[in-house]
């Protein structure tokens, strides 16, 4: 366990000290705070922009950190040869994958928690009370981060940083377009296309499972079984991704 923890600590500190992260943090906090001034432009009786904006910003922040830092997580180590002294220690390759994953995940979790807290404070300043219902978004935003980070680690274990970032963006877009893919599969009359669409629908990640924004902002009821399904889906999908990444990484040589 201490070996995994060493990699977690290394990844956490290395990622935290990257300058791009500071810029993202400052920019995201500014956006959340600035949303107070946008609120008067919202139509309707309840302050929606304030809620929606904060959730979107903290979610996009997590995704950006995953794509920018996560895409280089393994490949940078190989390219810069920093991985040499790690691989040659008595460490299993799977421990490296899990350590890298958890290191960046914990960092994003801490930062997103901070953003959620700031968001609540902004709501309190505007309305005089917190909105604890919105807190449900936090763990599900992290589940999305988990899945996307798993995808990036998978690509990072065999391809370049640029390719991994591109794949991250593609999977993010496809992942959120998953319900449309299902709709297409349901409605198309071409049998081959129908099966193909279903295959893609079931294989590719459905990131909309973790998107509760509309329900939370409009205070729509959220069912426990829906949350439970999303939780299990996110965890199983991530574990599978990490397992495949480990299998690929185990075969990797370092020239």
């Amino acid at each position, binding site marked *: 366990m201490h070996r995994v923890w060493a990699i977690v600590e290394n990844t956490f500190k290395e990622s935290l000290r990257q300058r791009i992260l500071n810029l993202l943090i400052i920019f995201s906090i500014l956006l959340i705070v600035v949303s107070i001034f946008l609120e008067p432009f919202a139509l309707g009786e309840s302050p929606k922009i304030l809620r929606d904006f904060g959730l979107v910003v903290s979610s996009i922040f997590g995704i950006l950190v995953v794509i920018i830092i996560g895409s280089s997580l393994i490949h940078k180590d190989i390219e810069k040869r920093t991985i040499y002294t790690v*691989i040659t220690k008595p460490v299993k390759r799977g421990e490296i994958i899990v350590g890298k994953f958890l290191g960046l995940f914990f960092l994003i979790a801490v930062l997103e928690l901070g953003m959620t807290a700031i968001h609540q404070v902004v709501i309190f300043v505007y309305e005089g009370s917190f909105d604890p219902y919105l807190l449900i978004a936090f763990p599900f935003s992290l589940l999305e981060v988990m899945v996307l980070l798993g995808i990036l680690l998978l690509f990072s274990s065999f391809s370049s940083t640029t390719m991994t970032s591109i794949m991250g963006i593609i999977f993010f877009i496809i992942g959120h377009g998953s319900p449309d893919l299902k709709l297409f599969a349901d409605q198309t009359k071409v049998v081959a296309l129908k099966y193909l669409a279903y295959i893609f629908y079931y294989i590719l990640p459905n990131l909309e499972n973790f998107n509760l924004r509309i329900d939370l902002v409009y205070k729509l009821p959220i069912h426990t079984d829906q949350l439970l399904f999303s939780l299990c889906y996110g965890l199983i999908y991530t574990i599978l991704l990490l397992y495949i990444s480990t299998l690929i990484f185990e075969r990797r040589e370092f020239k």
Partner: protein
Amino acid sequence: MLNDINLEIYQGEVFGFLGPNGAGKTTTIKIITGLLRPNSGKVSIFGMPYDSLKAKQLIGYLPESPFFYDHLTGYEFLKIHALLGNCTDYKKKVYELLEKVGLKRAGNLQLRKYSRGMLQRIGIAQALITDPDLIILDEPLTGLDPIGRKEIKDLILEQKQKGKTIFFSSHILPDAEVICDRIGIIIEGKIMKVGELKQLLKKGIKTDEISLEDWFVKQVKEKNA
């Protein structure tokens, strides 16, 4: 490309692995340390498969021209490598090694602020952090000033006195001459000579040519002729 490499390193010796650039020194070391896999053949470390965790537990390795995590401090870097090597009681050891490699004052400095020589020293410290029985150093004297080279050579000899086995590659021949018990010469992926330094010098060259450098140049020229 390596071809027909047959090499045995004796326990407790300092073995110098010498060869011109591109001869296959680093490739050989990468295979021994498990960074590369041989197409055929067998590599054993103290009788164990080279890529087993048990074998890796006994190895300390310094890569050639090492690059390390920029944003970690020297202390953090050694701590992480101690933990990776299953050394959980690391604090005293980290401070001892920082002092030994002359980086006591730089322990809290991030590695991106280290000079090339300092990186080489911290790299050697991470190779020694788990007190390994086999220390593999790829060009450990490169990038060091004369004082630094002397200190690292002393460190290698100190490890030898502790009964450790040291396998290192170098192209700084006079330095190798001072610290090696045996040497191996690799040229174009093939081992040309292996043996005790004194014996090789006696056999290979005239009596008035006494330096390893002269002898080495002669071997390379003969091979290329």
